[in-house]
């Protein structure tokens, strides 16, 4: 009897561990982040500029760190939205590298989310209002995987295109060195 119970418990725990495989197609709760709002910190915006405030993260947890599908989506969106145009495949170029331990505006999920939404001075566009928040969280999870911050069984494996480096699931975690984490130290760029 206890063996049967153990089997049931084991099966239940195995099923509970399937978050890695879950695929949510419909709109998620993350689509309407209830966080605070803040001004944009960049006049660069994709498409036609939006006025008004942008939403900030309402929690400091990367929602999709355990979901391989969502991180794969983040990887796709990283290219689609041309993050790779400046950050390359994480090695940086025009923008800073995302796979090392140097973080200008903080490496925690909250900071990454805010950086994408608000933009940052000297180039990083403000994507708030231009990308659904749900997708921003997916990109956050993917950016974290670039530096080895998510589990290797969840991180994306070999890319579809040519890439000479190690795939994300082969990277070891880079302990973040926080630099200039305080956003208030940064001067506000003039807004249009």
């Amino acid at each position, binding site marked *: 009897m206890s063996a049967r119970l153990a089997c049931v418990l084991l099966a239940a725990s195995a099923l509970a561990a399937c978050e890695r495989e879950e695929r949510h*197609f*419909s709109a998620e709760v993350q*689509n309407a982040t209830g966080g605070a709002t803040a001004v944009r910190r960049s006049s660069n915006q*994709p*498409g*036609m500029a939006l006025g008004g405030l942008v939403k900030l993260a309402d929690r400091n947890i990367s929602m999709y760190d355990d979901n391989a599908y969502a991180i794969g989506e983040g990887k796709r969106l990283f290219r*689609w939205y041309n993050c790779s145009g400046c950050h390359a495949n994480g090695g940086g170029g025009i923008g800073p590298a995302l796979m090392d331990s140097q973080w200008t505006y903080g490496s925690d999920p909250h900071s990454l989310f805010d950086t994408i939404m608000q933009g940052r001075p000297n180039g990083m566009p403000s994507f708030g209002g*231009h*990308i659904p928040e749900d997708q921003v969280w997916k990109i956050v999870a993917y950016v974290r995987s670039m530096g080895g911050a998510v589990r290797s069984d969840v991180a994306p494996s070999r890319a*579809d295109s040519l890439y000479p480096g190690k795939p994300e699931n082969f990277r070891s975690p880079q302990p973040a060195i926080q630099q200039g984490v305080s956003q208030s130290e940064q001067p506000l760029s003039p807004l249009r």
Partner: protein
Amino acid sequence: MNPGVHDMLAAWGPQAGHVAWLWNIFLAICTVVFLAVLAALVLALRRAPRIDAPAPPDLSTVNVPEPRLRRSVTMAVAITIVGLLVLLAASVFTDRALARLPLRDAVNIRVTGHQWWWTVTYVDGPVSETFETANEIHVPVGRPVVVQLHASDVIHSLWIPSLTGKRDLIPGRSATLAFRADQPGIYRGQCAEFCGFQHAFMAFEVHAETAENFARWRQLQLAPAAEPAGAQAQRGKQLFQSIQCAMCHAIQGTLAQGKAGPDLTHLASRRTIGAGTLPNDAAHLASWIADPQRHKPGVNMPANPMSGADLAAIVSYLGSLK
């Protein structure tokens, strides 16, 4: 004008005609083989010894070596080889016939397969006269069409059953397919290589038109998007360029220049949306924009929660893009 045929056996062009001819030969020979096998089976069943036979079975020949069925086996092998040779020859001649389509004065198109829709680029003429559309191929009647096939993510296959056979679109490679439509009409096409969740909803249409209609359509497609007339459509244009639509979609002549999704410059001139998933009218368009996942789960377009007024403005703008 037919309402949209999707029938491999109804050939509306020379290429599909060759394929249908080959299919008929295969059908005939396979039917003969099938009937012969069934006949042999019935014969064997009839000749088999029966357990309730009145007389005991004759066991006198049990220890005598069985006579070798040399003649019948030789005949069966010969017939099989002849049948296979006929099929082989038919395949070779069909291939040659398919390759012999005259390509003078051809329309050149590049089709790129994506999960789960098609980019169609008309590459004839100088670069300024090339243009892009999606999920709808227009061709002039009687002129050959040469299609370069590419894929951006996984393997797809282009199939227009009433006009031509399939050809795969393979990432990193290019293939060519040539066909000709001999009668005006709408021909349905479909991805024929399983490519993910929504493979079944990866359709497109080929519109074969007279030369004048094709030239008119081509001129229309070359023009940038029309400036919307009403205040609501104007607001829709502003919205489209500023919110998430512009991240993936392009409307030529505006700031929306995304390359990840279908080009919407002349969306209202197309018959369907979502790669043949829904008819292109205001109600379906609104429902699709609000939540594409409801119609095509897994599609890369996210749900777009927005107010009813905003949605109506965007739908009104898109409806004006003739």
